[in-house]
């Protein structure tokens, strides 16, 4: 065993350290818009959500819209239709906290999306892309592996195709009657749980500051219907007490407040872990597809030869 162990240790030593990803630059965007497209009310603000990026874009002057594709009827303790309604209200509050201008809910039935025609979801997204003409769309990763949530898979595939097809005039030519012109989305920022195997190749990191994380953390627990409950807060404190431990910040808080504090802490922790791997304090990582992505043979040429007018 010892020689084997020695070889293993040697091999581990030879493994390259995870390369630091380039920090992406967010340009000022007084006239720029972005769309966040997700199946659910709360997909933007969990550890692998884009709330940090959203706040960076908003701070830089961009206008953002949140598209919720499902009705979230399964998420929460109340059953439907109560959960649909509460989750939509909380999505509005959470995204408003991030600076998003509006939430458009498509209301497809949550977790029953397999029979929903792919082309129909895509058609709705193409319409919205042509309406808002985003410079950037962010969503779950259309090619991500091992995402067990069927809504994530369904919606991300529709997004992956809509951002491409929206640029072709012969796709839904009826939109012309509304004055909506074709629009190809130049930048796509895709995310997924970055510990879910291969298939997710992040290539940029978005650097976040304290203010970005603070808003992200709040938007996480603002989804009270699914994120907060007193019993968890109570149980966590009891667990700590059983081990002779205490978190001073939790003293004097109600059980619900204690749970909110712990949820916020988890957001800081997740962003710090990502940041630490890439030489910054807080971060979110993405697979960014740039404006010339459809033409890999022309990317270098266009970047070198296109000039300002």
């Amino acid at each position: 065993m010892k020689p084997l162990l020695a070889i293993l240790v040697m091999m581990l030593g030879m493994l390259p350290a995870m390369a630091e990803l380039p920090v992406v630059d967010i340009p000022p965007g007084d006239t720029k818009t972005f769309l966040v497209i997700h199946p659910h009310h709360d997909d933007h603000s969990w550890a692998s959500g884009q709330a940090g990026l959203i706040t960076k874009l908003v701070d830089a002057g961009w206008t953002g819209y949140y598209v919720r594709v499902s009705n979230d009827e399964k998420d929460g303790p109340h059953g439907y239709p109560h959960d649909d309604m509460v989750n939509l209200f909380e999505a509005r509050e959470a995204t408003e906290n991030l600076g998003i201008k509006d939430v458009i809910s498509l209301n497809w039935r949550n977790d029953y999306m397999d029979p929903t025609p792919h082309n129909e979801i895509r058609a709705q997204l193409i319409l919205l892309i042509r309406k808002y003409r985003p410079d950037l769309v962010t969503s779950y990763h259309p090619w991500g592996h091992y995402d067990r949530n069927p809504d994530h898979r369904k919606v991300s595939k529709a997004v992956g195709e809509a951002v491409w097809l929206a640029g072709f005039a012969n796709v839904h030519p009826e939109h012309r009657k509304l004055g909506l012109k074709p629009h190809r989305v130049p930048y796509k920022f895709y995310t997924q749980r970055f510990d879910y195997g291969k298939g997710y190749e992040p290539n940029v990191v978005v650097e976040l500051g304290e203010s970005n994380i603070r808003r992200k953390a709040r938007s996480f627990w603002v989804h009270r219907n699914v994120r907060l409950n007193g019993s968890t807060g109570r149980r966590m404190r009891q667990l700590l007490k059983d081990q002779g431990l205490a978190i001073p910040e939790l003293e004097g808080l109600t059980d619900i407040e204690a749970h909110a504090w712990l949820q916020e802490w988890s957001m800081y922790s997740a962003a710090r872990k990502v940041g630490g791997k890439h030489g910054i304090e807080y971060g979110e990582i993405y697979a960014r597809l740039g404006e010339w992505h459809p033409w890999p043979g022309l990317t270098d040429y266009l970047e070198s030869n296109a000039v300002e007018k």
Partner: protein
Amino acid sequence: MTLLLQRTTVALLLAGLFLFSAGPALAEGGKVVLVITADASDYVLAAGGTIAKMLDDGATGYLVRVTNDDKDSWELTAEETARRTREESEKAAKILGFKEVESLGYRAGELGGVSPTELRDRILFYVRLYKPSVMFIPNPYAEYVEVLDRFYVGQAAEDARRAASLSNYQPPFAVVGLETHVTPELYYYAQPFDPRRREAESTATFVPQPKVVDIASTFAKKLQAAQALKTINHSMAMRIKHRLESTGRHLPLLDDIDETSVSELVEINVRKLGAIAAKDTDHTQAEELHYAGVEYQIPTKYLQ
């Protein structure tokens, strides 16, 4: 029953091994190459040079183009786009050396709403009709390919290749003389979107592996075929120009868009695609494919 099916499949595969891998005696001259493509340009850009080499060496080529490419144009109706692209895709295929082109006519970008079984069986028909020794199909496992038609066609074609070898798929085909057929060699192609495209798969057994093919000898044909796709190329040039102009930039080459400037843009694209594939090899122009030959498809225990 399952065991019987497995044994039958292995027997058919072994038959394929002896029929089609008998070495130089058969060479490419006895080969039939069946290429399945979602659209007019994908197979040309990703595998046109490799296919042209086989056809130059005497293989007979058939192309099945699944969609009608009716979306990829600039200021043309869908109908006119489809008509022009059909003519141009047939011209491109002739340049590469194909004998026939079959256009199935599905609307581009709409394959997500087409039954996968229907698509598979349309392709299966041609597998049994042409009895190819080599198939080229879009790689459905390639990531970051926004044109999902390529994914749907790749999945259907992969399934069709297998189903064509089993008699209980499409029994009516046998009634009209289309017998089962095993295609011994399979190439998966994709343009270089996937950053992990060169990583070896986890095991060589049953799994296609990355393969880089030198296409220097057929590069000129590939380029000429790509340039023949005038409607798609004009669309690409206009899209790039439009994007640049909307962001206060311009590309001198595209200040005046005409046939010459578009052809030059296509040449830059095709040359660079070849250079990307040739990276870290001795080749100047290459294509990256995933290849599953007979040796990958027969379990080792049966080969011993």
